[in-house]
Each structure stands twice: as structure tokens, then as C-alpha cells.
């Protein structure tokens, strides 16, 4: 029988369609793998945001990749527990930064992020810590828009929820 870790490894191939450097595993949206039978899997996923338009694509790609390995797949969506940016893996955070998106700066237990006065968001390009918030809402639901006061580039920030 295939191990749970093997399934997660297969799912590494499924990327967030909006942020192709981040796998669904890195993103922390694959919550559970259950075996209904040796060849039948139930995968539980959770949306980042309630209205995330990428969920349908992600669900389909998870099914396709596992079906191609001979599994029957049922993908279910659960909103409990609610997704948090704390679940993004170290590898995911590193990939985000290299891609030009600043990873979430704080654990969500630190509420300073909501005021937009976070001191810890640094520019993914020049690494300067002199940055300022332009808008809490960016190109996708999960991102805010910042600008770097040193190199003057604007950049996306994966905001804490």
C-alpha cells in the first residue's frame, strides 16, 4: 500500500494556478488523505479564501494526477479548521520570496498585521526593510500591495490571515 507521504509527494505536482511556484502541499490546503480502500482515496482540501476562484482547478488537478497513478479519487472541501497563512511551509515561503512575492511576515497570533503597520515586510527584490503598504487588497484575494521605499519597486505581499 502507498504511504501517506507518497501521496503528498504526488500532490507536490499540483500548483496554485495563480502562484505557480507554490504547490498545494506547500500552501497547506491539503488537510487530509484517507483511504476508502487500497485504491480509493479521499482527499480533504480547504480554501485559502471563501471565494477563491482557483479551488475548482485545484480540485480537478488533484483528481487527475492521482487518477493517472491508478487511484479512484474523491476530493472534498472543508472549511474547518479555517486555513491560515501559518500553514505555508518553509519551502513555500522561500519559493514565494524568490518568485517576488513577500511571504507572510508574522504568525497570525500577532495581530499587528491587520493595522497595516507591520515592520517586518521586507522587499523581496532588494531585501530593504523600508517598505510601505499601498493597499490591503492586491491582485488576488490572498495578497496585499506594498512598495519598497529603497528600490521604489512595488511588490505583492502574501497577507496574514
Amino acid at each position: 500500500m502507498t504511504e501517506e507521504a507518497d501521496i503528498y509527494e504526488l500532490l507536490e505536482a499540483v500548483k496554485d494556478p495563480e502562484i505557480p511556484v507554490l504547490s498545494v502541499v506547500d500552501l497547506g490546503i491539503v488537510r487530509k488523505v484517507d483511504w476508502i480502500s487500497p485504491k480509493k482515496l479521499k482527499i480533504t482540501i480547504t480554501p485559502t479564501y471563501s471565494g477563491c476562484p482557483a479551488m475548482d482547478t485545484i480540485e480537478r488537478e488533484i483528481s487527475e494526477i492521482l487518477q493517472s497513478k491508478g487511484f479512484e479519487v474523491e476530493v472534498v472541501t472543508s472549511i474547518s479548521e479555517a486555513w491560515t497563512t501559518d500553514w505555508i511551509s518553509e519551502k513555500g515561503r522561500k519559493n514565494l520570496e524568490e518568485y517576488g512575492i513577500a511571504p507572510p511576515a508574522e504568525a497570525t497570533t500577532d495581530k499587528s498585521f491587520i493595522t497595516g503597520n507591520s515592520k517586518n515586510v521586507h522587499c523581496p527584490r532588494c531585501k530593504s526593510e523600508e517598505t510601505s503598504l499601498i493597499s490591503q487588497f492586491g491582485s488576488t484575494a490572498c495578497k496585499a500591495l506594498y512598495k519598497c521605499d529603497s528600490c521604489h519597486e512595488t511588490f505583492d505581499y502574501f497577507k496574514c490571515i
Partner: protein
Amino acid sequence: MTKDEALFEFLLRTGDNGLVLAQRLGEWCGHAHQLESDIALTNVALDNIGQARMALTEAGKVEGKGRSEDDLAFHRTEMEFRNNLLLEQENGDFAQTITRQFLFDVFQFELLSGLKSSSNEFLQSFAIKSLKEVTYHRSLSSDWMVRLGDGTELSHDKMQNALNLLWQYTGELFEKTEADDILIADGVIPDLEKLKESWDDIVGQVIKEATLEIPDTKGFMATGSRRGEHTEFLGYILAEMQYLPRTMPEAKW
């Protein structure tokens, strides 16, 4: 009225609030005064659509007649919608849109905070999830209230006019029906009277900081949505939103 019927009412109200507000905010797409606001308003719309889908799907399950989220969204008439009157009001200018948003965001934030300890499992998860999003919405609309209220003479006047127009629709956010009494007694939803106290408090603070004044409606508050009686605007929203699925019921993407 059974407990399930009461729950169905509440889920419809919650789902319809999200759906109608999202439809209104979507009208701003490509029209806001700056790109950041355009993106922010449509992001808020998207969160509301997501929340509406969850609430309406659950409503369909609780009702037990096999109605899906789409059946409920596209195949009900105005009289069957339970969204608050505030949310169907026209966008007007940006001042009016932001004021509507602010009055609702504070309400939604307080409601969801209360629902986090609901005795109903779905409402509890729904609240924990949605509250994360609404926290950002509330922060956006409160910022704009202060920035524009305490801005130029012109922006101040526009904000005060918006408050004067919309204040009459805030009373019915807290109206209690038989359904509410049942749900409050069972610990399914928080007490709407207590909710109003915290709403008054927070809304009052922001309005004061924005150098605006709470309008005197001389005791008048509009009412009706709990009974399906809406302002003229909802019909137009539904006509646009429901046209395709009603004309071509089998249409698929």
C-alpha cells in the same frame, strides 16, 4: 415554526446579504477612482460571494428539498430574498458605497464574532473562516470613512450626505422575528440587541473620528426585508443577475 425553518431563514438572510452586496460591488469593476480601490472593492465582492455560496448551500441542505446554491440564488423572486435593505441600495458615488460598506462591515464583524461560539457546527466554522476576511473589509471601509469624512470640505459633505441617506436602513439589521427568538434561545445566533450595543459603540467612534454626525431620523427606520418587502432596487439587481439562468436553465460554462 420549527428550529430548522428558523435556521433556514437565518442562512438565507446571511447568504442573500453576501450575494446582493457582492453584486453591487461588482458594478464597480473597472469604474473606481483609482486602481487600488477598484481591486479592493472587487476583492471584497469575491469574499462575499464565497461566503454567500457557503451559506446558501447550507440553507439548501437544512431546507431538505434538494435546492442547490444556484437554485436559491437564481430561482427566487424579490419577495423570497431576505437580504437587508441596506445592501441593495444603489452604489451612488464612492462615498455612498463606502458608507454602506462600513455600516455593514461593523455589523458583520460583530455578528460573526458572536457566531464563533454558535451551538451550530456549520455556523461556527463559517464564522471563524469569514471573520478573517471581514476583519480586512472593516479595516478598509473604516479607513476610508475617516480619510474622506475628515478630508476636504467636499469629501466631508459627500460622506455626511451618504450617512444621512443610509442611516434609516441600519435599524432593521437588528430586527428580531420569530426565527431569531428561536435561534437566540438555542444559542445558535448571538442576541441581536447586545449586538446593536457593540455596533453603536464602534460605528459611533469611527463617525466621531471622521468628524461626521449621526443623522437624526426622528425615530424613523425603514423595515421590511425580514418579510420579503424590499426597496425598488432589488428587482433590478435580480433581473440582471438571474437573466441568464432563467432564460437558459440548462446553460453551462
